[in-house]
Structures are given as structure tokens and as C-alpha cells.
């Protein structure tokens, strides 16, 4: 199993901190086993390796991003992020003892809502994952799942009844996913919840959750509380997954129709030659 980043992973941008957590005093973190320190320097940011190499930086989507290699381009687009009536909040950065790709796959999964996020994102006996669509964009750069419906108790602020809520998922990056969900404030617009996963090691991740929302009612503390509550519920599942790396062999685990997006995600990772944090299928 690979302990060194493959070329595709090496040349990606990865979020390593929320921007508000970066100050003039250097902090340390790990990216794919490499020890990094990062700090605010003048008007910009600086990320260096232990052996003194300066790495490329980006300050985008409320996070500080860097790369161990040479990224071919900038970051994927999240157009909603630029809308002026939205707020973006880094809900927190949480470490989990599992591979980054297992973390992303869990983020794409709806079937666990009634069992893991009981009373919040789902509720028994409403367990059905209805048919939804998954496709790869024409240039092969991104996976998009649409018309994902799942029953949610107390789905909107105006109703105490449960109902189906629609989700759209994007996977524009091997360890990042963006989720769109109808806003409880304006049903024509969507809340955006992005998960930027920093691979600390092949079996350890740090998840940065960034929300871009229309909600002007709830305080940031409350929104952060809610997101960390959800993520805290996922944690014991993720840390009890075996193996900790995401297996790409189609016979390693049993997919069902509800797993269409994760099947495409695994195939996409295999096609891109991702070996870091995964178990590639035997040749």
C-alpha cells in the first residue's frame, strides 16, 4: 500500500486551515505525511515544509490551500460562494482516523441518515433511497449527483412535518465535495455545504467544513454547533470502517443502487490513478 502520494494527489490543492485560524505565529500541520508550517505573512500567507521549501498558496472559500506538487490550475468553482447575500463560515476542522476518501464517500451517502443522524437528517422508518442521477461532466473533471431525495424530519422552519428534501452533490476534487440543499429561508435557492478534506496520512484525515448560506437568523456559533453535531455522529462510523483506506476493487464491498454516486467516485479515483488513501484493485 502506498505511503507516498501518487501524481494525481501530489498535484492537488488541499485546504489545510480555515483562514480565520491563520495568524502571524506559525502553526504546524501534516499533509500526506509531510510536516508543514503555515502563517499569515504581510498581506498574504506562507506555507513551508520542514526542509525549508516554500509551497504554493491559495486563499479561497474561507480556507488556506496549498499543494506538495505543481497544480495545473486553480481550484474548482463554487459560483454561489461569490453571491453577495451569502455568508461563509468555517464550521470547524475535525480530525478522523480514517482515509480522506472514506470521509468523502460518507459525505455522499444518504442511506445512513435515519440510523446515524436520527431525528435530524432522517428518521425511522423512512429509510428509502429513491432513484437519483449521477454523471461525470464531459471533461471528466467532476462527478455530479442530482435529484437526490431523502426524507427529513422537520425539514423546514415553517413546518414541523417531515418531508423529502432534495440534495445535489458535486465531487470536483479527489478529497472535496460540495453539497447543495434547499434553503429553509428561500426555497428557490440552495444552501451550500462544502467538505474540504485534508489527507493527514493515508489513514487519517482532517475535514474542513465550509458553509455558504443565506441564513441570517442563526448565529455562526449555532451553525457550527449543528455541523459539528452531524460530523460528530459520523465519526464513530468512519473510525470503525475496515479497511481504513477506500478499497477500489469492485469486489471488496457490496454496492447497491443507492450507492451509485460512491460507485462512480471509486471508479473515478481508479481512473485517475489515485493510490494514496485507497487500496487499488489488484492488476
Amino acid at each position, binding site marked *: 500500500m502506498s505511503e507516498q502520494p501518487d501524481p494525481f494527489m501530489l498535484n492537488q490543492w488541499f485546504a489545510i486551515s480555515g483562514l480565520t485560524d491563520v495568524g502571524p505565529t506559525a502553526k504546524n500541520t501534516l499533509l500526506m505525511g509531510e510536516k508543514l508550517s503555515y502563517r499569515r505573512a504581510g498581506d498574504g500567507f506562507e506555507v513551508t515544509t520542514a526542509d525549508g521549501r516554500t509551497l504554493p498558496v491559495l486563499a479561497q472559500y474561507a480556507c488556506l490551500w496549498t499543494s506538495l506538487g505543481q497544480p495545473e490550475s486553480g481550484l474548482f468553482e463554487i459560483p454561489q460562494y461569490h453571491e453577495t447575500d451569502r455568508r461563509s463560515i468555517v464550521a470547524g476542522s475535525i480530525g478522523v482516523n480514517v482515509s480522506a476518501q472514506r470521509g468523502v464517500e460518507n459525505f455522499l451517502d444518504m442511506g445512513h441518515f435515519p440510523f446515524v443522524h436520527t431525528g435530524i437528517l432522517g428518521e425511522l422508518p423512512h429509510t428509502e433511497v429513491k432513484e437519483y442521477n449521477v454523471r461525470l461532466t464531459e471533461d471528466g473533471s467532476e462527478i455530479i449527483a442530482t435529484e437526490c431525495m431523502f426524507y427529513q424530519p422537520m425539514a423546514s422552519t415553517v413546518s414541523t412535518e417531515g418531508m423529502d428534501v432534495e440534495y445535489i452533490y458535486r465531487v470536483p476534487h479527489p478529497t472535496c465535495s460540495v453539497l447543495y440543499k434547499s434553503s429553509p429561508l428561500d426555497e428557490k435557492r440552495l444552501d451550500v455545504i462544502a467538505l474540504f478534506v485534508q489527507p493527514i496520512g493515508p489513514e487519517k484525515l482532517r475535514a474542513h467544513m465550509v458553509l455558504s448560506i443565506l441564513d441570517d437568523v442563526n448565529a455562526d*456559533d449555532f451553525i457550527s454547533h449543528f455541523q459539528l453535531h*452531524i460530523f*460528530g455522529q459520523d465519526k464513530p462510523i468512519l*473510525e470503525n470502517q475496515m479497511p481504513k483506506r477506500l478499497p477500489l476493487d469492485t469486489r471488496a464491498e457490496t454496492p447497491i443502487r443507492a450507492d451509485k454516486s460512491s460507485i462512480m467516485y471509486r471508479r473515478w479515483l481508479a481512473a485517475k490513478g489515485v493510490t494514496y488513501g485507497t487500496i487499488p484493485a489488484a492488476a
Partner: protein
Amino acid sequence: MIRLYDYDLSGNCYKVRLMLAILGLDYERKNVEFFPGKRHREPEFLAVNPLGQLPVLEDGDLRLTQSQAILTYLARAYDASGQWFPLDTPARTGQCLQWLGFADALTATASAARLADGMGFDFDGDAAREGAHKLFAVLDEHLWFHEREGHDWLVPGAAPTIADIACFPYVMLSEEGGIPREPFPAIRRWTDRVKRIPGFVVMPGIFPAILGSQ
């Protein structure tokens, strides 16, 4: 009205919520964003507890810090049966206090490992894990022999006490700090029993004994 200065993901806050739920007490939950906001270090909360530690319980004019002290207070104030904080024999009182001390040792080890792994705290995770492993070995041995003597709980007797409530959270959250419970089957059986105490509630990271309940 009881007021609890609380943080959702804290095991020490959770044990107070758990005790309040078991005793069927209403309370006001005042969230202090320990992570990522570090609100416990801001003047507003330092005015409540100069040590900057959660949880804090207010009941009328009384303000209490330290989760084990809060559990003791709740049991003495609101449990007329005397089950939760046993005063019936000196031995049981002593044993209960002994395990409350053990709970503090769990906070210093299992909780520290969890904060290091999960929330990026600059603690020595390996030392914390080693410390927790030793505590778990002691706890498992105690519980195994207790089972043979017909006791289900940390303190001898038919019913659970605040000692069980105090030790439960950081044992149950240990895997978040990379501390397995697989070598300790008596601990695993005991945590199952705690989950079946009437009034039991969960926190993120802990599943209920009944699938899909809350």
C-alpha cells in the same frame, strides 16, 4: 430553572446532560463554543468560571464547576431514592468517590487523546493513550470480578450510581482518541448496560442501545 453551560461534543458536559435526563430534570442549555470558537477563553465565560472549564451548572444561587461535583450535587438534590449517590454505607460512599476520581483520570488521558486526534490540541497523544490503556485494564478487571459477584455496576449494589455516569463518556468515546476497547470485554458489556439505563440519552459519537432511537 437549572442552567447548564454546555458544549455538545464534551464528554464532561455530556455526563451532566445524561444525569439530568435520567433524573427527568428540565434545564436551560447555554452553548459555549469550546471548539472551534474557543469561547470558553473569552471574558464572557471567564466571568462565569475563571478557570475557563466546562461544564458549569447554575441552580438558583448555586454555581458549580467540575463535572463530578455537579453529578454529586444533582444526585443529592434531586434523587430522593438515594440511589445515585450512595450514603447507605460508608464503604459505598467511599467507593463511589473513588470512581469519581477515576473519571478525572480518564479525562486526563482518554479525553486528552481524543482532543489531540480530533480537534488538533497540542497534547502528547501517545502518552495519553498509554495512560488510558492502563486505566482500562484496571476497570476491566474490576468489572469482570464484579460480574462474578453479581454486581453490574462500578459500586457494589443493585443499581447504577453517578460513578457509572462519570466514567461512561470518555470510555465510550475512546476510539476517537485511538484507544481500542476490544481487549476489554467486561468494559464493553458494562457500556451496553449503561446504555439501557431508563432515560439514557446519546451524544455525537455514542449510539443508543436501540437502533434509530434518540
